């Protein structure tokens, strides 16, 4: 695949036959540099949405719908050829992004396999058959007449496995028993005269297993190529994009103040108690206690406050006041003010920094003397329980939160905390500290509204 900065030529002889690509090899397409990044981001939205859905324990029917919605929202294109191209290009770009560590590969493999499974299921029978023959699986669909005559036996097999023969599963494929030794060994299929009658979900799992095994090997090869040649070759062009992509947060960035306009210094203490997520509460308490915060903490809290609506002048005043017992006004102006102005985009390259998302916060590991990072991840159990109690979380809810923590679902833990503190549910889940803040304010406002 060639990446060019000039106009893209679309070659018609690159039309792919089956709608669901197998990503066997990078096709000879030319891609614009922007598309390289944007296509990947769109696909990443789908994969992350999937990941989110799985984390929340969505049921299969809900997942089915979720995948469909995510795909429609991010990957559709009016022209089929363009859609397929985007599909393939985005997959290969993400391969580069996610091949680089074992953990990244695992996640990518898992999400792409899940995506493939769902897309395979919602394809037409012809599409499915075409794919099966690409995988060299010689399966023939069972005719209606044959199905009727075997329905009882097929139902028996399903029930022997604790399943039912739902209408959706009424598609069966007939295949020589030699092709499906695992299903035969486990008596999970009906066999007759040397043919095994394989249900659609079993076929799906056979196809998906092949897909998964292929992609797993491909990712290792991609990693080798990346480290040996590509990364160096592309260090001025693709490499920075690739390296940024996997950490990119894909929701609203809270860099512009939204509905609640400004917050002034006098409001901060109050809202900190009611609407700050635990990570920011902790930092806030610490700065008040220690009259100091190290760099990581200043960045995390400082940008958060910016997102909350604290104007630059107020921010400078806030930090100066909090640091005053330890840092003189002159020293503050010399050593800290610049950085705060930098965060607000008034210095240097004038990037208006965006507040950190949960993903980013969870990924950092605080060192000695640090208080940033995600407390659900880094606090000891004892400290975390104490902190939750101080926030007003009931002991029953604390157990639920701790359960999520033990399973490393830190964002879900924070979500449960939100729900416990506010007494209302947070369906979307917490992805960003500023989102927590806004949702919290919303809940409190509506409560105040109704009371008044």
């Amino acid at each position: 695949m060639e990446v060019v900065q000039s106009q893209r030529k679309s070659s018609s002889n690159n039309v792919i036959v089956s709608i669901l690509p197998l990503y066997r090899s990078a096709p000879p397409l030319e891609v614009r540099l922007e598309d390289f990044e944007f296509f990947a981001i769109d696909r990443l939205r789908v994969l992350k949405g999937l990941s989110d859905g799985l984390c929340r324990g969505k049921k299969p029917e809900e997942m089915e719908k979720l995948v469909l919605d995510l795909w429609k929202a991010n990957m559709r294109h009016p022209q089929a050829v363009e859609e397929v191209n985007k599909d393939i290009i985005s997959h290969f770009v993400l391969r580069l992004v996610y091949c680089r560590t074992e953990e990244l590969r695992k996640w990518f493999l898992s999400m792409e396999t899940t995506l493939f499974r769902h897309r395979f299921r919602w394809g037409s029978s012809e599409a499915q058959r075409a794919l099966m023959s690409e995988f060299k699986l010689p399966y023939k669909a069972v005719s209606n007449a044959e199905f009727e005559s075997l329905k009882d036996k097929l139902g028996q097999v399903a029930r022997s496995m604790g399943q039912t023969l739902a209408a959706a599963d009424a598609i069966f494929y007939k295949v020589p028993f030699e092709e499906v030794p695992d299903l035969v060994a486990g008596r999970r299929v009906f066999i007759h005269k040397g043919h095994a009658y394989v249900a659609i979900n079993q076929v799906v799992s056979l196809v998906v297993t092949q897909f998964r095994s292929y992609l797993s090997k491909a990712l290792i090869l991609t990693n080798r190529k990346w480290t040996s040649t590509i990364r160096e070759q592309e260090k001025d062009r693709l490499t920075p994009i690739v390296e940024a992509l996997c950490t990119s947060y894909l929701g609203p960035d809270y860099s512009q103040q939204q509905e609640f306009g400004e917050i002034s210094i006098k409001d901060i203490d109050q809202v900190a108690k009611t609407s700050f997520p635990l990570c920011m509460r902790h930092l806030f308490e610490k700065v008040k206690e220690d009259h100091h915060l190290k760099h990581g903490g200043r960045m995390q809290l400082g940008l958060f406050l910016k997102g909350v609506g604290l104007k630059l002048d107020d921010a400078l005043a806030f930090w100066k006041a909090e640091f005053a017992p330890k840092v003189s006004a002159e020293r503050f102006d010399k050593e800290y003010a610049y950085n705060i102005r930098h965060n607000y985009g008034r210095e240097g390259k004038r990037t208006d920094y965006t507040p950190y998302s949960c993903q980013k916060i969870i990924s950092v590991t605080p060192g000695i003397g640090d208080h940033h990072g995600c407390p659900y991840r880094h606090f000891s159990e004892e400290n975390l329980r104490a902190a939750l109690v101080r926030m007003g979380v009931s002991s029953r809810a604390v157990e639920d939160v701790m359960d999520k923590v033990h399973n490393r679902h830190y964002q879900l833990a924070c979500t449960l905390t939100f729900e416990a503190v506010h007494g209302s549910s947070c369906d979307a889940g917490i992805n960003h500290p500023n989102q927590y803040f806004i949702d919290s304010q919303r809940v409190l406002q509506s409560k105040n509204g109704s009371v008044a």
Partner: protein
Amino acid sequence: MTKEEADNGRDDMVIDVPGQANAVPDGFNANYLRIYYGKLFPHADMFKWMSYGNDGKHPGCDKSYFGRREFSFTLENDIYIRFQSFNSVTELENSIKEKCPFKIDIGPVYSVDPAKRHAYAQSGNNVFTPVERELVFDIDISDYDDVRYCCTGADVCLECWPLMTIAIKVIDTSLRDDFGFNHILWVYSGRRGVHCWVCDGKARRLTNEQRAAIADYFHVYKGNENSQKKISLPGLVLHPFLARSYTEVLKGFFEAKLLPNQNLLASEERYEKILEMIPDASVASELRRRWQENKRASMSKDDINIVRWEQLKSILQSGKQKMQGLRRCVEEIVFSYTYPRLDMEVSRHMNHLLKAPFCVHPKTGRVCVPIDPNNCDEFDPTTVPTLSQLLEELNRGGLRQDAENEWDRTSLGESVAFFRTSFLQPLLKSCKEEIENSYNAKLQQSKNDLSW
């Protein structure tokens, strides 16, 4: 003296026992075997079988096929020689007659003549490897010692032999109906079990993985003297294979034959074993209580085992039992007593050697004769011809110039005839077709290749 006369004279000297012109004392020794291999063992039939049609004149025949088959001989004094191979029926016959093996085993067909295996192993390409082998099964009645009280170990009688009969019925039906195999040979192992040879081309070409899958499909009885519950049938209903086996073979046999013949519920020691299999302790206690009370009183003329079995069934199968584990308890008990107990290892690997049919068992002197699966109820292991019996029959027939078909004069004639008409001829017909079809297909293929 001509050689013939000399040979005949030698035969006379060996067989003739003073006082009884034709009687041959029971026994198993090299002298008896020599005559057996000389006159009775069906060398030509074995050759034809093992050639699978490749000994014909058709251009598609593989002349090397028979020569690549491994045989192994166990000689007197337990000397064991492997990797014997022969290029013609004459070589096979002469070697057997000369070496007089106490046991002949048949192994797989290898990629090259086993005699040359060392030359190929050197090349490091692993070129010496099995390429074809019948699908085989071995069932041994000593594996059923925990459920038969009439005999143990190597003994077998008409009370317990039916366990083998039903094993044949269950497996044979499944091999034909489920797996679509047609050329199946069941053989008495000479003492306490049966062997099964599935000889279809498809079967011979199965990989180890596929063989293991078929073995696992048949694997229901999972236990040894240390495990408590050896049969577990979860699921709301049984897989059609298990259901069919139960209703067509196992249930009837258990209730009508095994239960009364082996007195499975007549004494405390015996009925405790069955009660142990009931997961609900209160049900087991209830039955125990009833049966302890009934020890001396006989309520009816019916066999006590049958009466008690009815009681057990009626409690377990009554609608009142909601407990999960009880749903299939009756079937589990029947299966654990009667379901075939296969030696899994024999079936899993292509290179497993198995005793050749028509061998004589050294410990019993009985010939390993074929068993007709359609008439296996009639098979009586206690009346299978012995070596000495056959030699006696030969004597009675007197000397004949016609050295062909000597077995016709003996009880072996029936077995050889059955082997030919029911197994060998249909098999060879099918092989011939296969060779012709494959040859024609290859011709067509090369024609296609040539015409660009």
